[in-house]
Protein backbone atom coordinates (compact mmCIF):
# COMPACT_ATOMS: atom_id res chain seq x y z
CA UNK A 1 0.00 0.00 0.00
CA UNK A 2 1.07 3.54 -0.72
CA UNK A 3 0.16 6.63 1.27
CA UNK A 4 -2.48 9.03 -0.04
CA UNK A 5 -1.27 12.50 -0.98
CA UNK A 6 -0.24 14.96 1.71
CA UNK A 7 1.90 18.05 2.00
CA UNK A 8 5.08 18.17 4.04
CA UNK A 9 6.89 20.88 5.99
CA UNK A 10 10.05 20.70 8.07
CA UNK A 11 10.04 23.81 10.28
CA UNK A 12 13.38 24.88 11.75
CA UNK A 13 12.15 25.49 15.29
CA UNK A 14 9.33 24.85 17.71
CA UNK A 15 7.53 28.17 17.15
CA UNK A 16 7.39 27.60 13.40
CA UNK A 17 6.08 24.06 13.97
CA UNK A 18 3.37 25.33 16.33
CA UNK A 19 2.35 27.97 13.79
CA UNK A 20 1.86 25.26 11.16
CA UNK A 21 -0.32 23.23 13.55
CA UNK A 22 -2.34 26.31 14.45
CA UNK A 23 -3.77 26.57 10.92
CA UNK A 24 -7.32 25.35 11.44
CA UNK A 25 -8.05 24.86 7.76
CA UNK A 26 -5.86 21.76 7.42
CA UNK A 27 -5.66 18.41 9.20
CA UNK A 28 -2.01 18.29 10.24
CA UNK A 29 -0.11 15.42 11.86
CA UNK A 30 3.21 15.74 13.63
CA UNK A 31 5.90 13.41 12.19
CA UNK A 32 8.93 12.41 14.26
CA UNK A 33 10.49 9.00 13.58
CA UNK A 34 7.47 7.83 11.61
CA UNK A 35 7.60 4.25 12.88
CA UNK A 36 3.88 4.27 13.77
CA UNK A 37 2.67 7.08 11.54
CA UNK A 38 4.51 5.65 8.50
CA UNK A 39 2.61 2.34 8.56
CA UNK A 40 -0.66 4.17 9.27
CA UNK A 41 -0.09 6.43 6.25
CA UNK A 42 0.76 3.47 4.00
CA UNK A 43 -2.33 1.57 5.19
CA UNK A 44 -4.35 4.79 4.79
CA UNK A 45 -5.58 4.52 8.35
CA UNK A 46 -4.80 8.23 8.60
CA UNK A 47 -5.02 10.76 5.76
CA UNK A 48 -3.62 14.11 6.88
CA UNK A 49 -3.41 17.18 4.65
CA UNK A 50 -0.04 18.11 6.09
CA UNK A 51 2.85 16.42 7.89
CA UNK A 52 4.92 18.64 10.18
CA UNK A 53 8.34 16.99 10.57
CA UNK A 54 9.75 17.80 14.02
CA UNK A 55 12.53 15.19 14.16
CA UNK A 56 15.39 17.66 13.90
CA UNK A 57 14.00 20.54 15.99
CA UNK A 58 16.66 21.38 18.63
CA UNK A 59 14.23 21.62 21.59
CA UNK A 60 13.06 18.08 20.80
CA UNK A 61 16.52 16.55 20.71
CA UNK A 62 17.81 17.81 24.08
CA UNK A 63 18.82 15.43 26.87
CA UNK A 64 20.00 16.86 30.18
CA UNK A 65 19.47 16.49 33.91
CA UNK A 66 18.08 19.52 35.80
CA UNK A 67 16.82 19.76 39.40
CA UNK A 68 16.59 16.04 40.03
CA UNK A 69 14.95 15.16 36.74
CA UNK A 70 16.06 14.10 33.27
CA UNK A 71 14.58 16.23 30.50
CA UNK A 72 14.53 14.05 27.44
CA UNK A 73 13.55 15.62 24.11
CA UNK A 74 10.56 13.99 22.45
CA UNK A 75 12.56 13.18 19.30
CA UNK A 76 15.12 11.07 21.22
CA UNK A 77 15.25 7.67 19.56
CA UNK A 78 14.74 4.38 21.38
CA UNK A 79 18.20 3.32 20.15
CA UNK A 80 19.84 6.40 21.72
CA UNK A 81 18.28 5.42 25.06
CA UNK A 82 19.19 1.73 24.56
CA UNK A 83 22.83 2.60 23.81
CA UNK A 84 23.20 5.04 26.71
CA UNK A 85 23.78 8.00 24.37
CA UNK A 86 21.57 10.06 26.72
CA UNK A 87 22.01 10.38 30.51
CA UNK A 88 20.55 7.55 32.60
CA UNK A 89 18.19 8.72 35.35
CA UNK A 90 16.55 5.38 36.02
CA UNK A 91 19.31 2.96 37.02
CA UNK A 92 19.15 1.32 33.62
CA UNK A 93 15.38 0.88 33.44
CA UNK A 94 14.77 3.06 30.39
CA UNK A 95 17.73 1.53 28.52
CA UNK A 96 16.41 -1.97 29.23
CA UNK A 97 12.87 -1.05 28.17
CA UNK A 98 14.14 0.66 25.02
CA UNK A 99 16.12 -2.43 24.03
CA UNK A 100 12.90 -4.46 23.93
CA UNK A 101 10.91 -2.14 21.66
CA UNK A 102 10.16 -3.61 18.25
CA UNK A 103 13.42 -4.22 16.31
CA UNK A 104 16.72 -2.37 16.03
CA UNK A 105 15.95 -0.81 12.61
CA UNK A 106 12.71 0.54 14.14
CA UNK A 107 14.46 1.71 17.31
CA UNK A 108 16.99 3.64 15.21
CA UNK A 109 14.19 5.89 13.92
CA UNK A 110 11.31 5.62 16.41
CA UNK A 111 11.15 8.25 19.17
CA UNK A 112 10.02 8.28 22.79
CA UNK A 113 7.77 11.28 22.17
CA UNK A 114 6.23 9.79 19.06
CA UNK A 115 5.41 6.61 20.96
CA UNK A 116 3.82 8.55 23.83
CA UNK A 117 1.82 10.88 21.56
CA UNK A 118 0.61 7.89 19.53
CA UNK A 119 -0.47 6.28 22.84
CA UNK A 120 -0.82 2.72 21.63
CA UNK A 121 -1.82 0.88 24.82
CA UNK A 122 0.49 -2.02 23.87
CA UNK A 123 3.56 0.20 23.51
CA UNK A 124 6.29 0.16 26.16
CA UNK A 125 6.86 3.83 27.03
CA UNK A 126 3.39 4.74 28.34
CA UNK A 127 3.55 1.99 30.99
CA UNK A 128 7.24 2.50 31.80
CA UNK A 129 6.98 6.28 32.15
CA UNK A 130 3.78 6.03 34.18
CA UNK A 131 5.58 3.78 36.69
CA UNK A 132 8.50 6.22 36.79
CA UNK A 133 6.19 9.14 37.61
CA UNK A 134 7.26 11.04 34.49
CA UNK A 135 5.60 14.14 33.09
CA UNK A 136 4.90 15.21 29.52
CA UNK A 137 6.22 18.70 28.71
CA UNK A 138 3.85 20.09 26.12
CA UNK A 139 4.53 23.14 23.98
CA UNK A 140 1.68 25.29 22.71
CA UNK A 141 1.15 28.79 21.40
CA UNK A 142 0.46 29.92 24.98
CA UNK A 143 3.66 28.41 26.40
CA UNK A 144 4.68 25.12 27.99
CA UNK A 145 2.64 22.97 30.35
CA UNK A 146 3.71 19.91 32.36
CA UNK A 147 1.21 17.04 32.49
CA UNK A 148 1.66 13.89 34.61
CA UNK A 149 1.35 10.59 32.71
CA UNK A 150 -1.88 9.79 34.58
CA UNK A 151 -3.53 12.77 32.86
CA UNK A 152 -1.56 12.71 29.63
CA UNK A 153 -2.55 9.13 28.76
CA UNK A 154 -6.30 9.44 28.42
CA UNK A 155 -7.24 6.19 26.68
CA UNK A 156 -6.24 3.97 23.75
CA UNK A 157 -4.61 6.27 21.16
CA UNK A 158 -5.91 9.28 23.14
CA UNK A 159 -3.79 11.81 24.96
CA UNK A 160 -4.44 15.22 26.44
CA UNK A 161 -2.42 16.82 23.59
CA UNK A 162 -4.49 19.38 21.72
CA UNK A 163 -4.35 19.56 17.93
CA UNK A 164 -2.21 22.72 18.04
CA UNK A 165 0.27 21.43 20.62
CA UNK A 166 3.51 19.42 20.39
CA UNK A 167 4.96 17.03 22.92
CA UNK A 168 8.33 18.71 23.45
CA UNK A 169 9.98 16.46 26.05
CA UNK A 170 9.44 14.11 28.95
CA UNK A 171 10.62 14.89 32.47
CA UNK A 172 11.73 11.76 34.32
CA UNK A 173 12.56 12.01 38.05
CA UNK A 174 16.07 10.72 38.83
CA UNK A 175 15.78 7.54 40.87
CA UNK A 176 17.64 7.41 44.18
CA UNK A 177 20.53 4.99 44.74
CA UNK A 178 18.21 2.68 46.72
CA UNK A 179 15.53 2.50 44.02
CA UNK A 180 14.65 -0.82 42.41
CA UNK A 181 12.73 -1.45 39.19
CA UNK A 182 11.19 -4.39 37.36
CA UNK A 183 9.64 -4.60 33.90
CA UNK A 184 8.05 -7.46 32.02
CA UNK A 185 5.98 -7.75 28.90
CA UNK A 186 4.22 -10.73 27.39
CA UNK A 187 4.64 -10.96 23.60
CA UNK A 188 3.84 -13.81 21.24
CA UNK A 189 6.94 -12.96 19.20
CA UNK A 190 10.08 -10.97 20.00
CA UNK A 191 9.48 -7.33 19.18
CA UNK A 192 5.74 -7.65 18.68
CA UNK A 193 3.32 -5.40 20.46
CA UNK A 194 2.67 -6.73 23.95
CA UNK A 195 -0.40 -8.58 25.20
CA UNK A 196 0.36 -7.53 28.75
CA UNK A 197 2.96 -5.20 30.32
CA UNK A 198 3.89 -4.42 33.90
CA UNK A 199 6.37 -1.89 35.23
CA UNK A 200 7.26 -1.57 38.91
CA UNK A 201 9.38 1.18 40.43
CA UNK A 202 10.13 1.06 44.16
CA UNK A 203 12.04 4.09 45.40
CA UNK A 204 11.97 4.29 49.21
CA UNK A 205 13.48 7.79 49.12
CA UNK A 206 10.82 9.16 46.78
CA UNK A 207 7.24 8.13 46.05
CA UNK A 208 7.56 4.58 47.38
CA UNK A 209 6.35 1.74 45.19
CA UNK A 210 4.44 2.56 42.02
CA UNK A 211 3.05 -0.04 39.63
CA UNK A 212 1.77 0.47 36.09
CA UNK A 213 0.02 -2.22 34.10
CA UNK A 214 -0.27 -1.69 30.36
CA UNK A 215 -1.57 -3.23 27.15
CA UNK A 216 -4.98 -2.95 28.76
CA UNK A 217 -7.00 -1.70 25.80
CA UNK A 218 -6.99 1.76 27.38
CA UNK A 219 -4.53 3.89 29.35
CA UNK A 220 -2.20 2.02 31.72
CA UNK A 221 -3.55 1.23 35.19
CA UNK A 222 -1.41 3.16 37.67
CA UNK A 223 -1.27 1.96 41.27
CA UNK A 224 0.37 4.33 43.78
CA UNK A 225 1.50 3.10 47.22
CA UNK A 226 1.74 -0.38 45.79
CA UNK A 227 3.89 -1.78 48.62
CA UNK A 228 1.30 -4.46 49.50
CA UNK A 229 1.53 -5.92 45.97
CA UNK A 230 5.28 -6.38 46.34
CA UNK A 231 5.06 -8.67 49.39
CA UNK A 232 6.30 -12.25 48.98
CA UNK A 233 4.76 -14.62 48.16
CA UNK A 234 2.96 -12.82 45.35
CA UNK A 235 -0.83 -12.97 45.87
CA UNK A 236 -2.21 -13.51 42.35
CA UNK A 237 -5.82 -13.46 43.52
CA UNK A 238 -5.44 -10.11 45.26
CA UNK A 239 -3.61 -8.68 42.22
CA UNK A 240 -6.40 -9.85 39.89
CA UNK A 241 -9.08 -8.34 42.14
CA UNK A 242 -7.20 -5.04 42.25
CA UNK A 243 -6.74 -4.93 38.45
CA UNK A 244 -10.42 -5.76 37.91
CA UNK A 245 -11.39 -3.03 40.38
CA UNK A 246 -9.19 -0.56 38.48
CA UNK A 247 -10.99 -1.33 35.24
CA UNK A 248 -8.95 -4.04 33.52
CA UNK A 249 -11.40 -5.54 31.02
CA UNK A 250 -11.19 -8.67 28.91
CA UNK A 251 -11.65 -12.31 29.79
CA UNK A 252 -9.90 -14.60 32.26
CA UNK A 253 -7.04 -15.21 29.83
CA UNK A 254 -6.37 -11.47 29.52
CA UNK A 255 -6.41 -11.24 33.31
CA UNK A 256 -4.03 -14.18 33.64
CA UNK A 257 -1.62 -12.55 31.16
CA UNK A 258 -1.60 -9.22 33.00
CA UNK A 259 -1.26 -10.82 36.43
CA UNK A 260 1.62 -12.96 35.12
CA UNK A 261 3.34 -9.87 33.69
CA UNK A 262 2.92 -8.11 37.04
CA UNK A 263 4.29 -11.07 39.00
CA UNK A 264 7.30 -11.36 36.72
CA UNK A 265 7.99 -7.61 36.88
CA UNK A 266 7.91 -7.81 40.69
CA UNK A 267 10.20 -10.87 40.71
CA UNK A 268 12.63 -8.91 38.54
CA UNK A 269 12.88 -5.96 40.97
CA UNK A 270 16.54 -5.05 41.31
Amino acid sequence: MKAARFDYERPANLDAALALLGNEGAFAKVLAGGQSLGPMLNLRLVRPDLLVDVRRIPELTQAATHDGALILGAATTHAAIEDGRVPDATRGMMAAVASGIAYRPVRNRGTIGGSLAHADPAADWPTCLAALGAEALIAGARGQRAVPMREFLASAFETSLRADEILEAVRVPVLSARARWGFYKVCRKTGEFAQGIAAVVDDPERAGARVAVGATGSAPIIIEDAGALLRRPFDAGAAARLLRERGLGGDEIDMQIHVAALKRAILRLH
Partner: protein
Amino acid sequence: MSAKPIAMSINGRKVEAAVEPRLSLADYLREHLLLTGTHLGCEHGVCGACTIMIDGAPARSCIALAVACDGAEIRTIEGFDDDPAMAELRLAFGECHGLQCGYCTPAMLIVARDIVLRLPEADEARIRVELSGNLCRCTGYVGIVKAIRQVLDKRRG
Protein backbone atom coordinates in the same frame (compact mmCIF):
# COMPACT_ATOMS: atom_id res chain seq x y z
CA MET B 1 0.76 18.69 -3.59
CA SER B 2 3.89 20.26 -4.92
CA ALA B 3 7.13 18.35 -5.25
CA LYS B 4 9.81 19.13 -2.67
CA PRO B 5 13.51 19.40 -3.42
CA ILE B 6 15.77 16.83 -1.76
CA ALA B 7 19.51 16.24 -1.78
CA MET B 8 21.12 13.15 -0.35
CA SER B 9 24.12 10.91 -0.64
CA ILE B 10 23.29 7.44 -1.93
CA ASN B 11 26.11 4.89 -1.86
CA GLY B 12 28.56 7.78 -1.87
CA ARG B 13 26.99 9.54 -4.84
CA LYS B 14 25.29 12.93 -4.46
CA VAL B 15 21.72 12.90 -5.71
CA GLU B 16 19.28 15.78 -6.11
CA ALA B 17 15.64 15.47 -7.03
CA ALA B 18 12.17 16.91 -6.54
CA VAL B 19 9.81 14.39 -4.99
CA GLU B 20 6.18 14.16 -4.00
CA PRO B 21 5.98 14.18 -0.15
CA ARG B 22 4.20 10.82 -0.03
CA LEU B 23 6.99 9.02 -1.93
CA SER B 24 8.66 6.45 0.32
CA LEU B 25 12.43 6.21 0.39
CA ALA B 26 12.13 2.61 -0.84
CA ASP B 27 10.10 3.64 -3.89
CA TYR B 28 12.49 6.50 -4.57
CA LEU B 29 15.44 4.10 -4.55
CA ARG B 30 13.73 1.41 -6.59
CA GLU B 31 11.59 3.33 -9.07
CA HIS B 32 13.55 6.54 -9.55
CA LEU B 33 17.14 5.34 -9.14
CA LEU B 34 16.60 1.70 -10.20
CA LEU B 35 18.40 0.45 -7.09
CA THR B 36 16.23 -2.66 -6.96
CA GLY B 37 18.39 -4.54 -4.44
CA THR B 38 16.16 -2.99 -1.77
CA HIS B 39 13.06 -5.21 -1.61
CA LEU B 40 9.54 -4.42 -0.53
CA GLY B 41 7.46 -6.94 1.38
CA CYS B 42 4.76 -5.72 3.73
CA GLU B 43 5.18 -1.96 3.24
CA HIS B 44 4.30 -1.26 6.85
CA GLY B 45 7.54 -1.85 8.67
CA VAL B 46 6.97 -5.41 9.86
CA CYS B 47 8.77 -7.81 7.50
CA GLY B 48 12.13 -6.03 7.35
CA ALA B 49 12.78 -6.75 3.64
CA CYS B 50 13.35 -3.04 2.86
CA THR B 51 15.96 -2.45 5.59
CA ILE B 52 18.81 -0.20 4.42
CA MET B 53 21.29 2.12 6.16
CA ILE B 54 20.17 5.68 6.88
CA ASP B 55 22.88 7.87 8.42
CA GLY B 56 24.89 4.82 9.41
CA ALA B 57 22.12 2.83 11.10
CA PRO B 58 19.73 0.18 9.76
CA ALA B 59 16.20 1.49 9.12
CA ARG B 60 13.03 0.60 7.24
CA SER B 61 12.92 2.35 3.88
CA CYS B 62 9.24 1.51 3.22
CA ILE B 63 8.03 3.75 6.07
CA ALA B 64 10.68 6.45 5.65
CA LEU B 65 9.67 9.32 3.41
CA ALA B 66 12.22 10.35 0.79
CA VAL B 67 11.45 14.01 1.57
CA ALA B 68 12.18 13.48 5.29
CA CYS B 69 15.59 11.98 4.40
CA ASP B 70 16.74 15.23 2.80
CA GLY B 71 20.43 15.60 3.71
CA ALA B 72 20.80 11.97 4.77
CA GLU B 73 23.50 9.48 3.90
CA ILE B 74 21.86 6.43 2.43
CA ARG B 75 23.57 3.10 1.85
CA THR B 76 21.77 0.28 0.09
CA ILE B 77 22.88 -3.28 -0.55
CA GLU B 78 24.43 -2.04 -3.83
CA GLY B 79 26.81 0.12 -1.77
CA PHE B 80 28.70 -2.63 0.06
CA ASP B 81 30.95 -4.00 -2.68
CA ASP B 82 34.12 -2.92 -0.89
CA ASP B 83 32.96 -3.48 2.69
CA PRO B 84 35.09 -6.09 4.52
CA ALA B 85 32.37 -7.28 6.95
CA MET B 86 29.87 -7.59 4.10
CA ALA B 87 32.35 -9.58 2.04
CA GLU B 88 32.74 -12.06 4.92
CA LEU B 89 28.95 -12.29 5.34
CA ARG B 90 28.30 -12.81 1.63
CA LEU B 91 30.69 -15.77 1.64
CA ALA B 92 29.26 -17.19 4.89
CA PHE B 93 25.64 -16.88 3.68
CA GLY B 94 26.63 -18.95 0.64
CA GLU B 95 28.54 -21.57 2.63
CA CYS B 96 25.90 -21.96 5.36
CA HIS B 97 22.76 -21.96 3.22
CA GLY B 98 21.81 -18.54 4.55
CA LEU B 99 19.44 -17.96 1.66
CA GLN B 100 17.13 -19.79 -0.68
CA CYS B 101 14.87 -17.56 -2.77
CA GLY B 102 16.91 -14.47 -1.88
CA TYR B 103 14.03 -12.09 -1.31
CA CYS B 104 14.92 -11.28 2.32
CA THR B 105 18.67 -11.53 1.71
CA PRO B 106 19.70 -7.89 1.03
CA ALA B 107 18.08 -6.75 4.27
CA MET B 108 19.29 -9.84 6.15
CA LEU B 109 22.84 -8.96 5.13
CA ILE B 110 22.42 -5.36 6.29
CA VAL B 111 21.08 -6.45 9.68
CA ALA B 112 23.72 -9.22 9.91
CA ARG B 113 26.45 -6.65 9.32
CA ASP B 114 24.96 -4.44 12.04
CA ILE B 115 25.08 -7.41 14.45
CA VAL B 116 28.67 -8.26 13.54
CA LEU B 117 29.90 -4.66 13.98
CA ARG B 118 27.72 -3.51 16.92
CA LEU B 119 27.55 -6.74 18.94
CA PRO B 120 30.86 -8.58 18.44
CA GLU B 121 30.18 -10.75 21.51
CA ALA B 122 26.68 -11.83 20.43
CA ASP B 123 25.79 -15.48 21.07
CA GLU B 124 23.19 -17.47 19.14
CA ALA B 125 20.29 -16.34 21.34
CA ARG B 126 21.23 -12.69 20.89
CA ILE B 127 21.63 -13.14 17.12
CA ARG B 128 18.13 -14.60 16.96
CA VAL B 129 16.65 -11.71 18.96
CA GLU B 130 18.42 -9.18 16.73
CA LEU B 131 17.17 -10.96 13.60
CA SER B 132 13.57 -11.07 14.82
CA GLY B 133 12.63 -8.01 12.78
CA ASN B 134 13.50 -9.66 9.46
CA LEU B 135 11.26 -12.39 8.14
CA CYS B 136 12.53 -15.27 5.99
CA ARG B 137 10.00 -17.76 4.65
CA CYS B 138 12.52 -20.24 3.16
CA THR B 139 15.38 -21.07 5.46
CA GLY B 140 13.88 -21.39 8.93
CA TYR B 141 16.71 -19.02 9.94
CA VAL B 142 19.12 -21.87 10.83
CA GLY B 143 21.48 -21.12 7.94
CA ILE B 144 21.31 -17.36 8.47
CA VAL B 145 22.15 -17.67 12.17
CA LYS B 146 24.94 -20.12 11.36
CA ALA B 147 26.42 -17.72 8.80
CA ILE B 148 26.45 -14.83 11.27
CA ARG B 149 27.97 -17.05 13.98
CA GLN B 150 30.66 -18.16 11.56
CA VAL B 151 31.64 -14.56 10.78
CA LEU B 152 31.59 -13.58 14.47
CA ASP B 153 33.66 -16.64 15.43
CA LYS B 154 36.28 -15.91 12.76
CA ARG B 155 36.47 -12.26 13.79
CA ARG B 156 36.90 -13.22 17.45
CA GLY B 157 39.79 -15.44 16.35
